[in-house]
């Protein structure tokens, strides 16, 4: 039998492997035996690097010589909330330079939370003749000059997606750099751009790309121009409008409604900045087919909002502001039975008083009415254990549950008890829970529940919770699949961290800020665990100028085979063997 296995032709194995695309499966294949490792690495086409500092580009290139798609993530997630100081790192240029030399046939680059310079974009534009897809998600550091280089040089570009990135010195002229002969665009997302883009260039571009399926405009594109764009692209599947207001004029309205009616394939809507409610009915013709509706930036309230959402009976994903209120969520639960994802964002997150009537009841309604609910992000100002227990029982398919009670350490407002039992029910009932964010008043007990029940949990976000190191210990010792843990403002210190040091090598990363981990513990970890980078981030100055048992400001620990990085700014120190 062994002989037969060794005669198994490589080409056949490669052919079989071409059907295996998931990273986990590919990794498993590579562990079977040496020859499978070799065959697999030569035919791997896509790679995902969850932490750009976990590996050096040369290592990736050496192992996988034939990549066509590279996806990288840079800064830790809490960078989204300004907790990672500017200049921390995540600069993509070294990767781009290495990829440019190694992979002339590279087709896709996807980056998240990375610093991307115009120079990097120019290298991308000029190095890859068959470049097809560029996704810059929550990136920064580039301007429209870099985009112009991409537009001018990437003749086969299919996708350009700038979701949530910060783009400097925006000017709309870069769109004109797409040559007149360029027709391959299938996806364009410029919703994050601040200034106007050249509308005529946009219109011409949209009109000449017959494969354009996704178009997300920025708020500078006025409503009265939207109809023209839609008529030029009736094949659109995903649309993000620009500003959605204008003086109400019957001919503008009917023109717009007519244009929407012509988009028979439309399944996803977003945008809606600055809504003038009188124009909302123009989208009604497409509502019944919508599976995704993103009103996260839409200042629609009351009946206007409920009427719109109630039209969308096929909805699977809804992102909305808390203007929807409990009454709107009840209506949603009644008519959108296929709902799998709900995100409710706060319209006035910094206000001391609630400005809308959105409470725990809204989420309870949705959990009751929408049996397929899998993913929830919910900002609210009050919660009870009872509500959480109910929600836990109603939605067994939940894989991602993120609750943000706006006031830190808010208790069950009825019983004034911690919300330990409520979240305990959540983790006990959600057998497939992969992501969880906690909030409200929580003791070590909730972490005991999490460590006991959340066996499939991969990502946990914790803020203002817990009493002692025991809390952290429960999580690190109990959550077998834990990959990312991010903690802020919790009284977790050295003990749990040091007792579970080995666990940290099985995770992608751990972030702790405003906790109680001492500099001494950081040094110890760094010294004893060579495969971890232990980064102390402290803007107060060098940690060795303070007593060793003084807690560090911020701590970022991640596993790596690349060793310590050398691009750290002055407020970041890596604890390796030398620094102790």
């Amino acid at each position, binding site marked *: 039998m062994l002989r037969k296995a060794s005669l198994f032709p490589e080409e056949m194995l490669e052919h079989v492997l071409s059907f295996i695309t998931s990273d986990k499966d590919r990794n498993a294949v590579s562990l079977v035996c040496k020859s499978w490792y070799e065959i697999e690495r030569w035919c791997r086409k896509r790679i995902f690097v969850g932490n750009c500092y976990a590996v050096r580009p040369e290592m990736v290139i050496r192992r996988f010589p034939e990549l066509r798609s590279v996806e990288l993530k840079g800064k830790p997630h809490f960078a989204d909330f300004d907790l990672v100081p500017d200049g921390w790192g995540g600069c993509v240029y070294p990767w781009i330079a290495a990829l440019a030399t190694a992979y002339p046939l590279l087709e896709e680059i996807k980056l998240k939370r990375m610093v991307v310079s115009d120079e990097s974009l120019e290298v991308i534009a000029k190095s890859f003749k068959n470049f097809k897809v560029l996704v810059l998600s929550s990136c920064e550091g580039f301007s429209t000059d870099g985009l112009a280089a991409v537009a001018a040089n990437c003749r086969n570009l299919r996708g350009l997606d700038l979701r949530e990135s910060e783009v400097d010195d925006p000017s709309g002229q870069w769109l004109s750099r797409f040559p007149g002969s360029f027709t391959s665009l299938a996806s364009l997302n410029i919703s994050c751009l601040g200034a106007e883009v050249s509308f005529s260039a946009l219109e011409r571009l949209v009109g000449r790309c017959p494969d354009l399926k996704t178009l997300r405009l920025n708020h500078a594109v006025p409503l009265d121009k939207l109809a023209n764009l839609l008529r030029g692209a009736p094949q659109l599947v995903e649309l993000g409008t620009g500003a959605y207001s204008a003086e109400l004029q019957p001919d503008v309205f009917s023109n717009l409604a007519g244009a929407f009616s012509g988009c028979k394939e439309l399944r996803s809507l977003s945008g809606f900045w600055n809504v003038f409610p009188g124009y909302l009915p123009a989208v009604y013709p497409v509502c019944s087919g919508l599976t995704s509706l993103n009103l996260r930036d839409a200042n629609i309230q009351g009946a206007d909002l409920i009427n719109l959402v109630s039209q969308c009976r096929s909805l699977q994903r809804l992102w909305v502001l808390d203007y929807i209120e409990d009454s709107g969520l009840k209506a949603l639960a009644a008519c959108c039975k296929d709902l799998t994802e709900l995100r409710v964002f706060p319209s006035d997150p910094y206000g001391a008083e609630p400005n809308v009537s959105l409470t725990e009841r809204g989420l309870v309604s949705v959990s009751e009415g929408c049996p397929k609910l899998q993913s929830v992000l919910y900002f609210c*100002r009050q919660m009870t254990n009872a509500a959480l227990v109910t929600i836990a029982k109603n939605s067994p398919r939940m894989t991602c549950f993120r609750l943000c009670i706006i006031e830190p350490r808010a208790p069950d407002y009825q019983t004034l008890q911690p919300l330990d039992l409520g979240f305990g029910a959540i983790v006990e009932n959600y057998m497939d829970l992969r992501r969880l964010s906690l909030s409200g008043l929580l003791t070590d007990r909730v972490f005991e529940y999490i460590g006991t029940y959340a066996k499939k949990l991969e990502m946990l976000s914790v803020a203002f919770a817990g009493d002692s190191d025991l809390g952290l210990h429960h999580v690190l010792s109990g959550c077998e699949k834990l990959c990312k843990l991010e903690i802020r403002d919790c009284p977790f210190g050295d003990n749990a961290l040091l007792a579970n040091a080995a666990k940290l090598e099985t995770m992608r990363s751990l972030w702790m800020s405003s906790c109680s981990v001492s500099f001494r513990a950081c040094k110890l970890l760094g010294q004893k665990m060579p495969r971890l980078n232990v980064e102390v981030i402290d803007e107060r100055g060098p940690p060795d100028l303070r007593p060793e048992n003084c807690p560090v400001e911020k701590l970022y620990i991640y596993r790596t085979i690349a060793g310590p990085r050398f691009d750290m700014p002055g407020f970041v120190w890596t604890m390796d063997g030398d620094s102790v």
Partner: protein
Amino acid sequence: MELQLGLRSLPTYNFIENFDLNNDGFEPRDQMLGSKPWISCEDGNNMDYKRSSEVAFGKNTRYASRELPLLLWSGQPNDEDDWNGEKKISCSINKNGEEENRVEGWPPINSWRRKVLHHDQDQARHVMNSSRMAAAGNYQNGDGSNSKYVKVKMEGVAITRKIDLRLYNSYQTLTKSLTSMFAKCQNLGNDAARYSLTYQDKDGDWLVAGDVPWQSFMESVQRLKIVRNAG
């Protein structure tokens, strides 16, 4: 390195059944809305952490009965002494002193979105206004900005709302919208006739809405209040 915590068995949830909201017989207490926080982190002081560390390390903690042999990696004993005195446990470090007592990075809203859309940011307003100028076409607002958010309070209702007056061009459209906004939660229906709309003008005086032309009203209104008619 065995860690024995001797976890107590976790409680069952039977006593929670009484509160099962599936029966929808649950009345929230309105007066709890906006209630004071249990522990406020915004004071920016160290009280919370000192207290919790005392609870954790030896002073009548409810975990005292179970074993707590968290072994340090290097085999050194727990340095419980460190928790008293010298250790400065910092609360969230709020660098933006000028922002009103905000906890940094909380609530967890994407900072990019905050910068672009937050009304207090001058740059954002400039960007938004230039786009609104383009979008709004013929809108004319005397003060040059294209949005006018004012607070609307209704007598007897706990929630103060905010609306953008720019969306309306007459008292009729305004009152119609306000009626639907508030009537829905108050079950007013026909009772709408028993309420009046008042506003506070630039001088701080409260006036009945409707006496001055719409444009003048728009220029001077600072906030709105819906009051019950006397008698």
